[in-house]
């Protein structure tokens, strides 16, 4: 047995860390989050495409690296609060690869380059809706209905839209979407609400569609959990550094036991997220029966854990932690986004319980 990464995975981690710290250090990419309309750096994504990152979730022969590598990458992206739709993009690529339809294959080829964004349109106004009970219809070659919280939907070239009839692919119409921005507390996000009345292609139906969506949800949750681990890990590093340097009452504030114990609690949450997320990635990689269960365990844990770590990171920074200039808020906000999407805490708790050995 061995929990730590093997050599290839460790190499991927160090090379990804090097790449991101060089090309996407948070200090540099803040402007991308705040000012770039797309919310991400196109060149950076093209570079990720060139380096093969976009195909991480494909099968090995198609350039895939497997769920553990995926978790490694997501954790590294968490560490720098990497902006943009990477998680949606790679899960969309995976979804396209699972669909037999020709147009899916075409879009797959384009999306893999890292310059053509394909995202998902799943959520609807009815709270916590099951995708199978969609109010969006695919009829006569058109998708009609409203989707909400479409991530980076305004700038996507195509969207994978769940409908009552199956999974539809809608290419960006010439005039763009009929979309309204939904601005959340995480200024790095670019959610939109879209009222569809567009031509589309049904790329998966029935059980196939359900399975494609289920895989996307499961892998999205896994990626979100790993990203939350990275966000927490770096938040803690930043907090420890700050409390070591900052003095009050004549000593470093990090020497106060109350803050030390808080930091210890933060590490407990973060390292437990690491254990849970990588265990789940390993199960997914090895096709273990309990992979879905373990991913829900990881995601249900990571949300509240991340909230705690992100919030306490602000607290440990004191006043400056509440400024835009310091980083803690960016980490907390990203955690809030990841917590709420790819299945809410409540959904994952219920999904975990259903499959739990205690029942």
């Amino acid at each position, binding site marked *: 047995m061995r929990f730590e990464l093997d050599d290839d995975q460790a190499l991927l981690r160090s090379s990804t860390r090097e790449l991101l710290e060089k090309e996407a250090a948070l200090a540099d990419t803040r402007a991308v989050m705040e000012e770039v309309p797309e919310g991400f750096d196109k060149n950076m994504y093209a570079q990720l495409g060139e380096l093969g990152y976009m195909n991480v979730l494909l099968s090995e022969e198609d350039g895939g690296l497997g769920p553990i590598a995926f978790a490694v990458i997501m954790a590294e992206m968490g560490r720098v609060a990497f902006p943009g739709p990477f998680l949606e993009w790679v899960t969309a690529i995976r979804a396209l690869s699972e669909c037999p339809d020709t147009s899916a294959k075409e879009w797959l080829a384009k999306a893999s380059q890292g310059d053509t964004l394909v995202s998902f349109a799943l*959520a609807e106004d009815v*709270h*916590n809706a099951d995708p199978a009970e969609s109010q969006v219809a695919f009829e006569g070659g058109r998708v009609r209905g409203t989707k*909400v*919280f479409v991530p980076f939907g305004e700038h996507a070239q195509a969207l994978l839209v769940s409908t009552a009839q199956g999974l539809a692919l809608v290419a960006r119409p010439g005039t763009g979407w009929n979309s*309204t*921005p*939904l*601005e*959340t*507390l*995480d*200024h790095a996000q670019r*959610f939109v*609400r879209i009222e569809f009345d567009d031509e589309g292609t049904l790329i998966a139906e029935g059980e196939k569609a359900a399975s494609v969506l289920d895989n996307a949800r499961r892998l999205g949750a896994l990626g979100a959990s790993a990203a939350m681990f990275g966000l927490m890990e770096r938040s803690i590093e930043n907090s420890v550094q700050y409390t070591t340097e900052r*003095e*009050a*009452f004549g000593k470093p504030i990090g020497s*106060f036991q*109350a*803050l030390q114990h808080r930091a210890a609690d933060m590490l407990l949450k973060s390292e437990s997220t690491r254990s849970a997320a990588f265990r789940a990635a390993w199960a997914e990689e090895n096709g273990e029966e309990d992979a879905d269960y373990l991913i829900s365990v990881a995601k249900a844990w990571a949300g509240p854990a991340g*909230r705690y770590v992100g*919030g306490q990171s*602000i*607290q440990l920074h*004191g*006043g*400056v*932690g*509440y*400024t*835009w*200039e310091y980083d*803690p*808020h960016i980490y*907390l906000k990203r955690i*809030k*986004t990841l917590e*709420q*999407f790819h299945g*809410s*805490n*409540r959904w994952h708790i219920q999904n975990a319980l259903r499959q739990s050995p205690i029942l």
Partner: protein
Amino acid sequence: MDLHFTSEQKAFQLEVQEWIAKNLERPFTEEVKDPKHDADSLVEVRRNWQRKLNDAGYLGQRWPVEWGGRGATEVDEAILLSELARADAPNIPNFLGIPLLGPALIIHGSEEQRRRFIPKMLSADEIWCQGFSEPGAGSDLASLRTKAEPDGDDFRITGQKVWTTFGPWADWIFVLARTDEEDRHGGISFFLVPIDQEGVDMRGLKQVTGEAEFGEVFFDGALAKREHLVGKLGEGWRIAMTLLGFERGSSTLLNPADYERQLRGLASGLRENGEIDRPDVAERLGWLAVQNEVMRGNGLRTLANIDAGMPPGPESSIEKIFWSEFHQTMTDEALDLLGPQGQLKATSSHARPDVDWAYQYLWSRAGTIYSGSSEIQRNIIAKRVLRMPTAK
């Protein structure tokens, strides 16, 4: 025990309610949502609101009649503030100037200072900000390093202050500055400093909410005239400490009223989502309601004892921890219960109409830091209330 408001207090509450109903055009959350507003125009909304309050005689109502007082008690003040919170009225620009600087001038200031500053502070013709905290002196305020050096009869101020709320719109700042390097507490004095002068550089300090309502201010030999020293040299620390305890009763009912309004908004949201009757949702909502009511009980207790002239109990640090941490708990739960919609900014399409949850969630992170962090409050309780030992 007597937790009743007197009939006069009840009448005053009714009067305030009616006055608000007549004078408040719309809740401040709606102002924030209105795309016509920017940060500057929102300050004007607040300034106008302060003027209305002042015209109605609601500001400085506990002061001597000469300075706007009308013989009000802390209970009246608490009633006023809680009704304003319940109605989601705008925060007034001089929300620190009036309760902190006002009494400082009335008790420690000169007659000239009072005449010069109080009327315009009340009318919001001059906005005041507070210059206490420094980048290196937050929880440990007495370690402040901004200094005031004699320059003829006057003083020159050098240093940096942060967390100056409304600073970017302020005309004056009241400043604690060091006039003696050797004397930790006795070497601090209290100055009034005009902001529009060379030597004062006021910058907006962007907060995690994205606003820059706070400022940070750099003094580089800024002039503080001798006549703008409040009290004597070296009395600044004592003045500041008195003031920080002076209005402790007024806000006791404010937070529970504010949070009650927010919880009512949460209940509405959950009702609209068809979830309020789910036992899990109801239990979580109910537990929030219970905690808020317990907080109100603490507030009533503080207020009642102040009103009865009783010495303050251990309540004030407890109240600070309670409201600030409960605000975090409440917004945490609200965002979890409301789902993605709870994360929408007030200015976004489809945001909840009644409560700016995204702002409240982020803003709640500040409450456990400012005005004595939760850590400081717990130290106070352990050492001063419980008398736990200090390491030898």
